[in-house]
């Protein structure tokens, strides 16, 4: 395998990681808010808080990691996307900032009761951030970023009129809620909290239908937006079929209330197949017609250095991730809340 493929695969894996952990996080924020509004906050809210507290920082790193890797492997990406995305990028930063900080303030600060306004802000950013981030996928299909007099420009009108943009946003919204609910179903079951489990299970089932419909919509919109990409997707159609099969299995398990751990693994596989299928067919472009992984790749020495650093990093990172999961995700005592809380 050549460096270009290794590089883009590394990045794509991290973006996938971010998609999963951030979806859980963002969706959880929304459900937390929703449950406070409905008045069954204590049933669901505590479960969500207990999961989120030790991991909120880690989620952010996945995104930064992807971004730094993108700039490292494809320095031209910084130039095109950087110039084009000043305003949306800044808005995402502000939302991430508000979300991250107020989460920490609320959890580690003293105020015990849930502030409604804060919860609303938290829930809203949980929905808006993925929507905003997903639009970059729409931009990457081409036709939005152009050049005039040697400067990068963005055709925002074309962007907002484009049905593909909206189908991607829709997909991001529903899949965040779906992934999150599917995970929390598993988590609630492990905690032995029957009430929370039943509520979250209903969320999971409710969001599964819209997710698959939105996926189909986005799938066919690509044909209109970028037929070349769509043809490439048809060549690896088996990946999308596999994704659908995993979806069916995951939902079936939740429906039957059995094998919830496997159910979430199938959710991850469902998105993995779709995500890597989409990514693979998108190649060789990172930004259609402007950034090609072969032509705009960093120099060889840097590529080797980055890949070596990545391999060494993984050796430290994976055991640490396993440790935090064992301590908080798979430790029955902690999940039930009988273990000690924050210092």
């Amino acid at each position, binding site marked *: 395998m050549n460096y270009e493929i290794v590089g883009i695969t590394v990045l794509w894996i991290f973006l996938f990681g971010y998609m999963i952990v951030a979806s859980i996080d963002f969706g959880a924020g929304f459900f937390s808010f929703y449950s406070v509004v409905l008045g069954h906050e204590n049933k669901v809210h505590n479960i969500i808080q207990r999961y989120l507290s030790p991991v909120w920082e880690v989620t952010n790193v996945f995104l930064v990691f992807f971004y*730094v890797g993108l700039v490292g492997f494809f320095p031209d990406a910084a130039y095109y996307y950087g110039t084009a995305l000043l305003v949306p990028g*800044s808005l995402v930063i502000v939302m991430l900032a508000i979300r991250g900080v107020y989460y920490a303030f609320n959890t580690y600060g003293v105020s015990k009761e849930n502030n409604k306004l804060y919860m609303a802000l938290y829930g809203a950013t949980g929905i808006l951030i993925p929507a905003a981030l997903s639009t970059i996928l729409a931009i990457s299909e081409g036709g939005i970023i152009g050049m005039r007099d040697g400067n990068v420009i963005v055709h925002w009108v074309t962007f907002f009129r484009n049905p593909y943009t909206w189908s991607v946003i829709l997909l991001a919204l529903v899949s965040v809620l779906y992934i999150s609910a599917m995970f929390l179903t598993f988590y609630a079951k492990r905690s032995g909290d029957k009430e929370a489990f039943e509520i979250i299970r209903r969320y999971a089932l409710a969001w599964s239908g819209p997710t698959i419909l939105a996926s189909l919509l986005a799938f066919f919109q690509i044909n209109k937006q970028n037929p070349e990409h769509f043809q490439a997707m048809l060549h690896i159609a088996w990946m999308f079929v596999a994704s659908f099969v995993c979806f069916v299995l995951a939902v079936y398990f939740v429906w039957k209330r059995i094998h919830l751990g496997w159910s979430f693994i199938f959710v991850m596989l469902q998105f993995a197949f779709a995500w890597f299928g989409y990514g693979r067919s998108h190649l060789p472009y990172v930004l259609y017609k402007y950034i090609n992984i072969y032509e705009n790749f960093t120099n060889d020495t840097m590529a080797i250095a980055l890949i070596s650093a990545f391999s060494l990093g993984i050796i430290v990172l994976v055991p640490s991730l396993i440790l935090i999961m064992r301590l908080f995700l798979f430790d029955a005592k902690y999940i039930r809340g009988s273990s000690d809380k924050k210092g």
Partner: protein
Amino acid sequence: MSSLDPVLLSRILTGLTLFVHIIFASLGVGIPVMIALAEWRGIRTKDPHYTLLARRWARGFVITVAVGVVTGTSIGLQLSLLWPTFMRVAGQAIALPLFMETFAFFIEAIFLGIYLYTWERFTNRMTHLLLLIPVALGSSASAVFITTVNSFMNAPQGFTLSDGILTDINPIAAMLNTATPTKVTHVLVSSYTMCAGVLAGLAAFSIARGNKHMYFKKALKLTVISTFVFAIATAIIGDFSGKYLAKYQPEKLAAGEWHFDTSAYATLVYGGVLDENNEVKFGLKIPYALSILAGNALNTEVIGLNEFPEDERPPLSIHYFFDTMVTLGVLLVVIPLIYMLRKRLPGKKVYPQWMMIGLMALGPLSLTAIEVGWMYAEVGRQPWIMRGYMKVTEAATTSTNVGWMLILFILLYLVLCFSCIKVLSKLFRNKNAIDEMKMLGIEGGERK
């Protein structure tokens, strides 16, 4: 003009983000070390006061980490959003340290989460303390990696530039450039100094408000002595940095010292103002000191600013940043020294009011020292973004919306800092140390 405006606005916005981030980033680097120190003493001396101290610091630390994380994400993304042309070029040469910085941050994030939630989980308290090692190592390592990027901008190397394209790139050489050793060590040690100073200021504040408990005196002793040690180390490395500047980046030193003509036996100017003919007025002039600063000998030749074309000179105002930084550095050594000699001082009180005011000032003084130090370093390399290779004006975004983004971020940072201070003060006021000692049944917890 319209092509220049984004440049100025981008500079202001980047400066603003860094201004906010530097405080929280430095706290992130130094506080884990201080927490580890306190917890370790607690275990070694079996003194629960130190353990409580570590615990209370850790509680406040999470709040500052949260702000540090989001402002860090902010500056990271802004690099590409505001300086796309720079990142396109620099990405070829310095992606490696940026990449490694994220790894270090990852480790820190993971272990901080574990540390905070496992105070009572391990029977051996040493195990809990060991969790801090990856946190402290991770935060210091990210500071090291990101500082090598900044060093690269000051002393670009590890590539050849031909027709605007970088070739023969050596990422390791780019990281280990001539500016790296002094910059990295100065950044690390000054962060430790700042954190020790801030915590010392807080401890002094508690005592000044009338808390006579041993707990506060122990906290004060630990933090003030740490401030002293770290401040001395910072000063020594600062001296190396001066020698580095004299050799490799003479225009920064010359602008900072208002040294116009190349000469040996150079005089150091402290304070003062410049008239229209660039003559120094009212300044305190210390003969030969600049030559000693530059090369440890009276006859060291110090390159003057006149050797550089006018459009490649840094602004002369950085003189004040340099003076302020050095003055504050001296105070950060002297004030702790007075505290350490307190028992030999004339007078009956061991903690006289004037000394407590001085100790309280350690916090704000050390914060200011970090800020002006960075301003000196950054403004001092104007007009370059990559010294000798790329000017700031060539690197900025062409977008016309930077002004709006500046307003947006000013609002964001105001809100962040304001609520951070509010949350922190509420956190410590609602659960004060005395009550907590009583609650935990620590001996001596009752007010004496």
